[in-house]
């Protein structure tokens, strides 16, 4: 079934209102399998709300989406088996050791003992935590914790991984290592949807969705987005210039 779905994620007029406030306003997009998508926007633009709806953590007010071929409103259980989710909070148990965290998350995904053991060594290797399996997670520095959280989120080899601000509060070197991991995942065929407000990071994405005030204001590869902008000086425009220009246009256009 999921193999037959043309896209990893298909959103149709997806909306979310909190009372009178519209956080996400009729958003539609398709994500190809095996690519990295960057969801860009200022704080409060609606990035996290979109991700939370796609993961089944939040119900949509209107519109729908299919994730791995399953409907977010009617088939949340099937979706949960096929996705991984990691937020900026690196939600691990700080009072458990590295290995205990991995075994716990493997357990709640219903992985067998043998599978957990083999995935454990894979995650430990990936996160660079070999030899530190019995250390308390709370003692790890941000970068290690972040890679361990990613490892725990993809233990069950999901088709699609949602990363909500995964690099917040991590040093630049760790951020680069982290993006290498994400690239490796995409090469293995995993679809990655990642939100960030570090505009330099957006260059790693194959495609970018620019969100402003709950709506998609631009979509394309980083190159395409920059091409649309006239070069004003000797320096080629950066994604930041694109971003600022688009937001200004929006603000002028709608008068808000």
């Amino acid at each position, binding site marked *: 079934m999921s193999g037959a779905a043309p896209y990893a994620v298909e959103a149709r007029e997806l909306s979310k209102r909190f009372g009178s406030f519209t956080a996400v306003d009729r958003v539609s997009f398709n994500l190809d399998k095996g690519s990295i998508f960057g969801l860009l926007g200022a704080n409060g633009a609606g990035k996290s709300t979109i991700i939370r709806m796609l993961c*089944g953590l939040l119900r949509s007010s209107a519109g729908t989406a299919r994730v791995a071929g399953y409907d977010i409103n009617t088939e949340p259980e099937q979706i949960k088996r096929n996705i991984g989710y990691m937020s900026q909070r690196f939600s691990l148990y700080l*009072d458990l050791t590295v290995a205990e965290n991995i075994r716990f998350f493997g357990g709640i995904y219903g992985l067998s003992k043998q599978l957990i053991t083999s995935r454990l060594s894979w995650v430990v290797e990936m996160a660079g935590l070999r030899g530190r399996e019995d250390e308390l997670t709370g003692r790890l520095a941000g970068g290690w914790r972040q890679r361990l959280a990613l490892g725990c989120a993809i233990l069950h080899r999901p088709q699609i991984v949602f990363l909500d601000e995964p690099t917040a509060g991590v040093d630049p070197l760790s951020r680069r290592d982290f993006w290498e991991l994400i690239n490796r995942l995409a090469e293995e065929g995993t679809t990655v949807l990642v939100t960030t407000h570090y505009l330099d990071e957006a260059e790693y994405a194959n495609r970018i969705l620019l969100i402003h005030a709950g709506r998609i204001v631009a979509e394309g590869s980083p190159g395409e987005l920059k091409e649309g902008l006239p070069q004003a000086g000797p320096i080629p425009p950066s994604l930041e210039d694109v971003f600022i220009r688009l937001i200004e246009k929006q603000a002028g256009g709608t008068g808000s």
Partner: protein
Amino acid sequence: MSGRIIPILKKEFRQIARDKRSLAVLSFQPLFLLVMFGYAISLDVRHISLAIYDGEKSAQSRRLADEFGHSEYFDLKFDLASTQEIDGLMSRDQIQAALVIPADFSRRLLKDNACTVQIILDGSNAVSASTALGYIEAVVQDFSARITARALLRLGNQPFQQPVDYRPRVWYNPELRSSVFLVPGLIGFIMIVTAVISTSLSIVREKEHGTMEQILVSPIRPFELIIGKTIPYVLIALGINLAVLVASYLLFGVTVQGSYLLLLMVVLLFLVSSLGLGILISTLATTQHMAFTLSTLLTILPAFILSGFVFPIRNMPPVIRVLTFLFPGRFFLAALRSIIIKGAGLSAFWQQLIGLVLFAAVTLALSTARLRRQYRGTEGQA
């Protein structure tokens, strides 16, 4: 299905074992409370400090004073030279009661066949004052009855007997020790602390740390999560219960008169309703601080005041008495006392049991409904 509960169980036990501080609080608090309630907060009134002013110092007045001196309820602390001293002694808490025998005590007794002694009581503790008053009345009445008897005998009658005599026999708690009465209440109190507060805190902690979100995106089902998170606290609460029972036997000689099986059943039923309340609180609270405040407000205070733990429900005004039905403590305590003190069977407290079942059903239904709503994501992120 059940395979996914086990990792949660394991994790929960590990976290409890690693949180040494909470574990210490969980295990020492019950014993501390037991010793506190058993020894310090005794409701028994004995050894009332008494001062006597004997204005006559006759054989007759001496006899009355001796009556008090011989009672174990009174300690004759002061023999006063003047009634002026009473004020000072009572305000310094050296005496709780004073007896004033007038200078014309035996004279009036002979002449009018009636006389008055004055009793002065420290009413600042109303409970012990009224108990003390009861004892004093009994001593004085006993004394006057004997005078009447002697007078009648002198008049040539048959040896006089009081028309109605009584032989008191106190059932279930013959020595009227308040520890016997308080231990069942204490068990309820301790279970509320462990069950409601610990479960609500352990769930809200996960919300605060974001790990709840991580669990919610996994295929685990709400009931698996709840079972996995509550079983450890059920076991801990049962363990503490057992420890309290053993300790109250060793310290106060309180034994369970009734069936242990019934006791276990009532305790489990109460635990289920408490856990339901704990989960309900955790769905309402977003921070551990809020969860703690809510649990304290909804459990400790009603358990202490409205359950009949210390204050008898039948003495409460009707409005408050109705309120007691809103908390499971009253049902639980009545059933516990029936089993532990009276050794009663099911027929004695089936109504309490129905109350507990109703309460458990309501809290569980409400909490799973709320949890499901949050789980399905119909509510915004808190």
